[in-house]
Structures are given as C-alpha cells and as structure tokens.
C-alpha cells in the first residue's frame, strides 16, 4: 500500500508529480473475475503509457519539459540529463521571486528552512514522429453492459539528494509512478463491490526522520473509521507508536507554498525564535492548529468572544490531526452545545456572554468527545511554578491549552522551562487580535509570542483547560 522514500534528512529538493490519468474501459460482463481482468488490462495500458516515450513531465510555472523515457531529454536545450535537480529552481518563476524585493531579508531566510518542492505535471505527448502511422479505425460494439470512465489522481513524490542529477532523480520518479499505479490497481480491485468502483487516492504522510515522506493509496469515499486495519499494518510496517494517528487523512502532509483552502493561518508560532534559558527546554504543541481570533468569519465578538476563539483553536487541532471530522464550531454552535447539556438557559444562545475553562471543557466533551483536565491556580503569580506540569502536558498530550482568568482568555501553545533555575516563559496565542491573517504582523506585534510570568494578572485566579489527546491511530 505504501512506498517509503527513505533518504537521509540532509536532502535536496522534493520532486512532486501530479496529473490525472484517464481510466476508461468497457465492462462486457459483471462477473467479478472478468471485471477484474478488464480492469487489470486497463491498468497495464496505463503502465505502458507511463513507461512510453510519450510520457512527458512539465515543470509547473516554467518552460522546462522533460521526457523521462527518452534518455531524460529536456527542453530548454540548456538542460541536460546531467543537470542537477536543484538547478531547475532557476527556471521556475514564482510570485515570491517577483515580490522578493519588497519582503524583508529576515523573512526570506526563515522560509528557506522548509523543504523546497518542484511541482511537475504529468502529460502525454499525443503527436508522433517517424514514419506515418495508419489512419484511424472506428470500432462499434453493441452489447448491453457497463462502461467505466474516470480519472485517477496520480500524485508521486521523490526526495532528491543534494547534487543528484535529473537523470537519476527522474529514473526514480518513474519507478515511483509505476509503483503507484500498482498500488492503485490493488486498492481498486480490493474495493470493487458489484459495479461500484472507488477511485484510489494517493496521500503523503510525513513520518519522523529518518523515514520521511511516505505515500499511501486510500480508496476515496471510505472513511478513516473503516480503514483502521490498514493503518495498523502501516504502523507495524514503519514501527510507529500506536498513540498518534500518523496515517489519518487529515494528517496528510501539507506541501509548502500550497495555500490552505479555508484561509486561516496555520501554526503562526513556527516563525518565532524560541527563548534560551539556562538549562531550559522548550515544550511545544504537537501537530497543527489554525489561529482563531476576534472578528473572523464575519462575527463581531470583540470584547466578549476570546474564550470562544481559544476553544475554536483547540477544536481545529483535533480536526487537523484527524481525531474528529467535525468542522470547527461557530459561537452559536458552542452556545447551543452548552444549552444542550443543561449548562445554560435558552437565553444564552445568541447572547454575548463570556464563557470560561469549565465551559470549554464541557463543549469539548459534548461536541468532540474529548476529555480535559482542569488546573486551578488561586493567583496568577502561582503560574510561574507550573512549569513541570505544563511541560508534561505538552510532552504527553501536545494539545493547545485554554487559560481564563481575570477578564481575559488566552491559548498557551508551549512553555520554555528550566528545571534548575525555575525560569519560565509561555508561548501565547492571543485571541484578542482583530486584524487580517498576516503572519508577519501577528508575530512582530506579539499576538503570537513568548511572554514572561508577569504577563499574567498576579492577583487574579486562573483556570486552565488541558485537553487530553485520545491515544488512538
């Protein structure tokens, strides 16, 4: 079901090929065995297409076109089979390069730490050279039967090493393509029921190093809940612990420079420099979350919605790691949930009443089935001594924490703590921000940033809601 790209972490560019491959055949019979034969035969045709000289890979946003089965012939003519993969970047025109002059140098250097991806499109050359081929033949078959017509979304990834030539890299890419077609055939045949066919969908997952990027083909339309056996096999194959859902669809790797469809910022904390404390260690939220704050989604909750937004950030975490499929709840849905459990009166729904950590715990349980621990401090100054507990939370559960006290609610995304000196810093995501999704502003102005113990109201009491991560795959 899987191809692992086992290269070391000092790697060069990632080559990613995507493209639809047309899958069409006439199913003369609904007998399962005969159907399998026809489908296998059609896959053989796709295999030979991909291995033929007509197979073409075009580099997106560039004039570069490569024929991998013609001795890796490429145009423009400056590119030869011995050209290095990383040199292809020079040919790619991205919007980023055009705006490069306007951005600060600081920002640019941070971006280079992410793996660079060269996107390729899979195409077929329809024209032929050489001696003239024969004129077309029209064939008409009359038979009450079935017709299968769809496209398969090929999506193949290969991680190149530094100084790898395009000749070597593209040979590996071709192997990956043919392997993916084999996997697609297996998944397709496995999931045929009568005349229903499920489209095989490749997804990539980033496993802890050195395993790296791994591709899995899942049948479209079969929910994660029915694919647990497959995920168990994968966990065994890759020797992964059983307490993190590495292979749920929501955890598919998000390639850099691919925009998120929903428009929210993901993990704005990644752009920050972490504090260095004497003998200190940094403990952070694991995985991904979206930044929810005042004024988003056309809801004017300025002044009252901060806890709601923190709760939304937490819900987004559970959705993006694949623990729940439920979308992030709206203010109204949150209020309705509290009414449903009997925690509030009917007048609460549609109001601008604040909620606190207890309500956050209740809603997480009601809507997501997630349990949370509540931590209480009688005054804000005590938070300075909670380093060990917070660190442990991020180690074992890794979920964002909602903290409410005084008149404010915030989200804690991490803690920097020194066991010896007791120094502590808190990574805070502030839901009171009212501006646009500009990660530069958000980090520069501290809406997502490291704060000291004096950030808290030293006298007020605080409640913290620590959501527990379900230990499932």
């Amino acid at each position: 079901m899987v191809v692992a790209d086992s290269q070391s972490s000092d790697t060069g560019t990632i080559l990613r090929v995507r493209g639809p491959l047309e899958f069409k055949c006439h199913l003369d019979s609904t007998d399962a065995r005969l159907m399998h034969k026809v489908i296998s035969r059609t896959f053989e045709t796709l295999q030979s297409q991909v291995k033929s000289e007509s197979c073409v890979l075009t580099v997106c946003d560039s004039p570069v076109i490569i024929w991998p089965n013609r001795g890796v012939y490429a145009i423009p003519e400056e590119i030869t089979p011995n050209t290095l993969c990383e040199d292809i970047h020079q040919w790619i025109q991205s919007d980023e390069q055009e705006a490069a002059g306007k951005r600060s140098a600081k920002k640019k250097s941070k971006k280079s730490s992410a793996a660079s991806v060269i996107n390729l499109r899979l195409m077929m050359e329809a024209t032929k050279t050489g001696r003239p081929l024969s004129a077309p033949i029209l064939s008409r078959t009359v038979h009450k039967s079935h017709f299968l017509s769809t496209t398969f979304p090929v999506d193949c990834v290969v991680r190149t090493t530094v100084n790898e030539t395009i000749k070597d890299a593209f040979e590996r890419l071709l192997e990956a393509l043919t392997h993916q077609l084999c996997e697609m055939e297996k998944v397709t045949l496995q999931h045929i029921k009568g005349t229903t066919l499920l489209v095989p969908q490749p997804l990539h997952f980033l496993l802890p190093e050195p395993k790296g990027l791994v591709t899995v083909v899942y049948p479209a339309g079969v929910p994660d809940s029915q694919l647990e056996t497959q995920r168990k096999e994968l966990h065994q194959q890759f020797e992964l612990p059983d307490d993190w859902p590495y292979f749920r669809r929501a955890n598919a790797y998000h390639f850099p420079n691919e925009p998120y469809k929903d428009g929210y910022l993901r993990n704005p904390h990644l752009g920050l420099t972490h504090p260095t404390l004497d003998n200190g260690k940094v403990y952070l939220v694991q995985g991904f979350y979206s930044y929810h704050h005042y004024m988003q989604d056309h809801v004017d909750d300025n002044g009252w919605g901060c806890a709601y937004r923190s709760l939304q950030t937490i819900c987004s975490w559970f959705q993006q790691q694949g623990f729940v499929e439920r979308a992030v709840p709206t203010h109204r849905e949150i209020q309705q949930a509290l009414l449903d459990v009997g925690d509030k009166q009917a007048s609460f729904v549609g109001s601008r009443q604040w909620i606190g950590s207890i309500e956050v715990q209740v809603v997480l349980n009601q809507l997501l089935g997630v349990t949370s621990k509540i931590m209480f401090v009688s005054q804000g100054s005590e938070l300075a001594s909670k380093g060990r507990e917070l660190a442990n939370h991020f180690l074992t559960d890794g979920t964002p924490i909602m903290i409410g006290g005084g008149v404010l609610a915030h989200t804690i995304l991490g803690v920097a703590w020194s066991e010896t000196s007791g120094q502590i810093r808190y990574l805070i995501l502030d839901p009171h921000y009212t501006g646009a999704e500009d990660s530069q502003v958000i980090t520069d102005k501290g809406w997502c940033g490291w704060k000291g113990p004096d950030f808290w109201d030293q006298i007020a009491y605080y409640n913290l809601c620590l959501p527990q991560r379900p230990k499932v795959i």
Partner: protein
Amino acid sequence: MGRSYIVEEAVEGYLTKQCEQKAGPVTGLLIGQSSTQREFVVTATRTPQREEPLAAGDSPDKQWVTEHARQVSRMLPGGLSVLGVFIVTDIDAKDSLATLRKLVFAVENLISSERLWNPADDDVTDCVALHVNPKTRKTFCRTFDIKDPKSVAKPADWKYQSGVCSSWSTVSCSLSVDMLVPLPDDRTDLEDMDKCLKEGLKVWAHQLESAVCLIDGRKLSEDMELVGGQKRNVRQTYTAQLLITPDERRATDVVQRCGGSVSVRGAIHSRAYLHSNKPKAKLAEKLLKRDAVSTVATRAQMLLEELLTSDGESKGSGRDRPQRELFCLPHRIFCPVKASGPVCVCDYHFSDEGLSVVTDRLKEMLDIDAAEKDLDTRQETPAEVLEGEAAAEPTVETIEALEPKRNRYIGVAMATVVAFLATAASMLYLNDV
C-alpha cells in the same frame, strides 16, 4: 473602415472564365485565410453543375450552394476556409445583394453548425459577398458581419496580387487519436452513435485546446512571431508537438450502464497554413488544433453519412451476444492548389478506391484539374485491421471491416441531407436570414 481582400492573380482569370458561361447566374465560393488586418483569397471554385442547369432568370439554389460549401469546407486544411460567396450575373449589383446576403449567411451558418471547436474572441467574423458583372468584368465587393443577423453590407477592397501564398508557412504534426465513448443503454442505432461520437470529439477538442504546443521542439510564447516567410518563395515548414492531459473528473458515476461503446484509434496528419504577414505562434497553434479536430470529425461524419444511406444498421439484435463492427476511416490525401505554392487542399480516400475517385472529386468540388501523380499520399497510410485486433475478444462476434458503399458525389450527398432534415442542425441553416 472596410475590410481589405488581397486576391491571388489566378482568381481573376478564373472569374473571367465564369463570365464566359452562356447560361444563368454562376455562383461559387471564395477560399482563403482571414487575419485581423486583411484577408487573403487563395482560390475560387464555382458551384457544381446540377442536372438541370439554371436558366438565365433563375435565382441560385440556396440548398445546392450551401451543400457545396459544406463539402468544400471538409476539403480545406487548417488555415483555409470558405471566406464568402461570389456571383456572376448581369442582374444589377445592388439587386443581387439580397441574394448574396442570403447565400453568405446560409453558407456560414451551415459550416459553423458542424464545427466542434469553439470560436475564439479574435476570430474575424466578416464574410465576403462578391458580385461580378459578366459584361464589364467589374467586381463589387461587400462584407457582412455574420455574428450580427441584422448586419448591413459594408464596402471592401478587392485587390489582385501575384504569388499571394507562395511564401506561406506550413505547420503540421502526426497526431494519435484514442477515443472510447459509451453508447446509451437503450439506443444504439446510428444517430445515437453520431451523437456520442460528437460528444467524445468535443471532449477531445477541449483537451487539445488546452494542450501545450511545441513548435520545432520549442515552447514559444503566444505573441512570438514565427520566423520565415519573409523571403519570397522560401517555404517554411514547422513540426508541432502537442502535450495533452485529461480533464479531471469528479468521481460521481464512475460506472454507468451502457448499450455498447464506440472507439476511434489511429493516427492522423494535421496541417495548417499561415499567411506570410508576420504570423504569431498563437495563430499557428490555434489553426493546427482546429484542423486536428476537424479532420477526425469529418472522417467520422463521412462514415456515418454513408452508413445511413447504405442502410448500414447493425445486423442481428446484438443485445445479448456482443457484436463488434470495425470500420476503416479514410486516410487523408493532399493536392496542391497551384503548381508553385505550398498550399494544398485535401480529400479523404478509402483504400479500396482508385485514386481517380479523388481526382474526380477535386474537379467537381474545387474545379481543380489534378493528375494522380500530383496527389500527395505519403502523409498517412491506410487503416489496417490487424489479425490480433479482430481476435482480441473471443466473446465478441466481430463483423469484419465493412467497406460501406461509396458514392460521394454531391448528388448522393444531397440525398443524405434529406435524410438529415429532421435534425435540428439542418433546420438551422435552412431558415432564411
């Protein structure tokens, strides 16, 4: 500001010859290429004789003229099209304008109704209506904008020049076709096959439209000019490559019931001619892609028309036992318009016909006197049904490749038109404008 027509010198001689006809009015078609700045007329051809020729006072037979235009249009490679209609009559130019207008619109409507590709925004939509006075030999040239049904005649320039197309460029390619479409569950007769094939061709045309086009192995930007054609009598030929990718399909009804399927597999030679006035890569790509779609559609259409007239319904019920028929589509043959220029017209040839069928047809439709040795038959080879293919599916009863009876002269084509009269497309062109 009116349109400007640059006309091949030989056309003047041809029109003069038509003036010497004793009988009634002579109509015909003007053939060439449009560009935004001017139009180029490469050749002209008179409407073929009917069995009972028109008398002096008769008005032209619109159906006959438009059917001729339809047949001629199929014989024009990319870059050439029917630009308009001419009439040689001693009726006054002003009075014959109404007739010309009817003919121009009817011709254009019929030809465009058969097209499977979408018109582009930068296409020229003017058609020419030329009146020639047989006594004085004077020409009156007008254009109509066929996008506007209420369009009025605008005056246009008509200038003769020698060697209009002698330095035109040719861009060509050999394109493989691999189409498979289902036939509907309960209707599998010829009209359904026609409809399904057209749908399949439209999808293929759409894929070609978004295909990446390389010219002489390079990807040129749209506005880049193709080099060459600047020296007279230096012929430039370019080879194109087309890279396609299928449209992504949303996986909703992946498997559907069907009554069978139709496939078209093989290769075609596609070609387009480009005027020598600084043609751009974008134009070459557009004209070549249109030609590719047209040539496949024409051949399929020709096959269907002949099956219809020769009563080619499938034999036997074929419902329970699958039945497969194989038909060889004709291959394309080119013939130069003039001995010296690069521009050719084309025709389609079934392998068991003699080449005289082609030369006869060129004479009837395009009034070209060609000898068999002038024909270029090397661009495509005839279709072959290989042994392996026929035996591919043992459960399928294969009827060996049928060669439908052929009689492709215009008289028979007219009978087919009558058969098609029930269809909407025909109703469209018969409506008076």
